[in-house]
């Protein structure tokens, strides 16, 4: 066993910390509290932040050098993520493009597609949104109904996508659309569609947090050029499923870093109020510390197994269930311990420093639903890892 980072990896962490000290002027929480900001200016701020990260060589680090990466290992990527979250840095607008579309193009795209799309995705000159889910197709994604019809050499796309994060600000969308109604998996293809064209309607959706960070998009004969089909016709499902499995380790240390920061903020407020004298309070806070540290242990194990080249097991489903359900427990405890002050809205001048607890409390409801609900993750564990019988 060896759970130690190498001196090179530790040096990389130090480099990131130094870079953040130099470049991250205000935390994301501070930015969102600034009354001078609105939704648009926050997206622009995120765009500028991604550009900065890109110029420093921190975006798409795991990609080949040719495509703007540095061929970094999973551990370096995990360290970068952990530091960004521990420092409450803004989220980059192209996170879905970088984590899903980039690998799809690198592994399944054409040279032409890579040249055309990757540089602007990295620099955030173009923002991408993801078009997988539909109103009738969430967990059962393969039932999707958006269809692509031939129009000469090109394609016309018809249908609706939903939960398109950053959709209202996006320039392009990558969609899964049906090219054969009779073949459940083999009838799905992967298209790149520009959003600034006739036949596209993007509607923001107001979330339970009050923001409209995601939206729904209606395509009614919007054009996807023939050269914007990724992979072969009918390979869309396969590509989507493969890219969802890439960079398994990149997020391994992200959530313990993010929630660790939140737990520290919570603990220091409680300590200032003298709350640590209560056994009950200490037990609740202690339980949060324990669960977060166990999540970190899981993450380190995932990284170690990736480095050792072991085949993937159930760890990504375990990780997903763990962090998303833990975030709900964490914010439940926080609002309980903080009293009414924990309910103050983002931007309220009386709000506690460091974390917008009411926002986190609401936001934590999303994690157990997106990217495969907790129920789907449990199905995956039962079927793939435990090999339980099918009825």
């Amino acid at each position, binding site marked *: 066993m060896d759970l130690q980072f190498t001196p090179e990896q530790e040096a990389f962490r130090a480099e990131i910390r130094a870079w953040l000290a130099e470049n991250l002027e205000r935390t994301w929480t501070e930015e969102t509290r600034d009354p001078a900001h609105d939704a648009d200016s926050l997206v622009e701020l995120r765009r500028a932040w991604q550009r900065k990260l890109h110029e420093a060589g921190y975006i798409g680090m795991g990609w080949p050098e040719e495509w703007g990466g540095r061929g970094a290992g999973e551990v370096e990527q995990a360290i970068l993520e952990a530091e960004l979250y521990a420092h409450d840095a803004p989220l980059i607008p192209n996170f879905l493009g970088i984590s899903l579309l980039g690998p799809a193009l690198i592994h399944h795209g054409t040279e032409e597609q890579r040249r055309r799309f990757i540089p602007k995705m990295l620099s955030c000159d173009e923002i991408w949104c993801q078009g997988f889910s539909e109103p009738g197709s969430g967990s059962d994604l393969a039932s999707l109904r958006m269809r692509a019809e031939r129009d000469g050499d090109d394609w016309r796309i018809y249908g609706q996508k939903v939960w398109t994060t950053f959709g209202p600000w996006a320039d392009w969308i990558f969609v899964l659309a049906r090219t054969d109604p009779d073949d459940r998996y083999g009838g799905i293809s992967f298209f790149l569609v520009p959003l600034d064209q006739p036949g596209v309607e993007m509607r923001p959706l107001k979330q339970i947090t009050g923001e409209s960070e995601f939206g729904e998009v209606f395509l009614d004969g919007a054009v996807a050029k023939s050269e914007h089909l990724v992979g072969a016709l009918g390979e869309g499902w396969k590509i989507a499923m493969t890219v969802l499995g890439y960079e398994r380790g990149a997020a391994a240390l992200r959530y313990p870093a993010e929630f660790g920061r939140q737990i*520290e903020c919570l603990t220091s407020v409680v300590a200032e109020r003298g709350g640590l004298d209560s056994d009950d309070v200490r037990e609740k806070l202690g339980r949060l510390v*324990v669960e977060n540290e166990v999540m970190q242990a899981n993450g380190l*194990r995932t990284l170690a197994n990736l480095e050792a080249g072991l085949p993937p097991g159930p760890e990504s489903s375990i990780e997903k269930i763990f962090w998303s359900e833990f975030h709900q427990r964490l914010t439940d405890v926080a609002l309980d311990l903080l009293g009414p002050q924990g309910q103050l809205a983002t931007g309220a001048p009386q709000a506690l420093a460091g974390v917008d607890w009411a926002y986190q409390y609401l936001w934590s409801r999303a994690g157990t639903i997106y990217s495969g609900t907790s129920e789907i993750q449990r199905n995956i564990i*039962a079927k793939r890892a*435990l090999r*339980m019988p099918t*009825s």
Partner: protein
Amino acid sequence: MRFELDEDRALLKTSTRELLEKEAALADTRAIMEETPEGYSKALYAQLGELGYPALLLPEDQGGMGAVAFAAVLEEMGRVALPGPFLDLAVAARVLAGCDGAEAEAWRQRAAAGEALVVLARNEDPGCADPGEPATRCSDGRVSGSKTFVPFGAHADALLVETCDGLALVERPGAGWNATPLETLDHAQRFAEIELDGPGVLVADPARAAELLAEAGRLAALGASALLLGLMERAQEMTLAYTTERQAFGVPIGSFQTLQHRCADMMLQTESTRSAVYRAAWAEECRPEEAAYLVAVAKAWAGPAGRFVCGQAIQLFGGVGFTWEYDPHIYLKRVKTLEQFHGSTRTQTAAALSLSIKQGD
């Protein structure tokens, strides 16, 4: 980075599994637990002694192999729900190695070879699983006081008694201990109350005793967490086998989504315990400054996780899970006992919090 065991430790783990599957099959274990006063196989413990198992926590030149090997062995012992005082003995041998004097050294050798059973006697208050300040005294070569929940105390050859004057070594008197066995929910854990009023020798002064007991507490917590891991692992396997074989409504019950989700949760708890336990064991060897914190995390997590997994095992077995005949109850009982001792969940959770605050500073 590497999470897997290295070759030597992996080999130790495999050979331990083979030995225990042969010599400590549950059917035999049940007979021994139910029919012998001491509740464990003395023959198997003698064999474990000959093979050097109780010496695992000693320095390398005395047969030790380190905390990771220790965790791997205890995980295997947990899998078969091995009854008896192995954990207590291995920890006592380690404490003896840090004590002063020829007596301590002699008992250390006998304990490490499995020739004598030595255990720590700490608790005095039956209302509190975590030992408090002792009232027991050791002066002028006499130890007097009363200890409770001494693990396998009635059958021990010697006790390492925590007193307010330091750590005292007390040999079993010729007439035997003045011990009252305590019947508890896990009949494979034989606790006793012991009245002490006889000769004993001080083997560590209060300051040294505090150091040794802190270290012993940490190692015992690590060992208990590893036992919990093994218990959970096996309870999960039994449950999966049962839900595959047992039919209802014409299909295996394991095909029902509700049961599948329960099993997925069992796996989440079990695998997370594995991550936490081995990380703590690794820290004990390679990151001593983090060991106390990571062991507290592992034990605080493993107790409730074990209770959950073994509780689910009974639930998924259904009615037969509530019978004496089927095995899940053995696991449920053992995890509850282990959760309370070697740092209860409440104590370890509080320790994790205060150590995390210290580490943050």
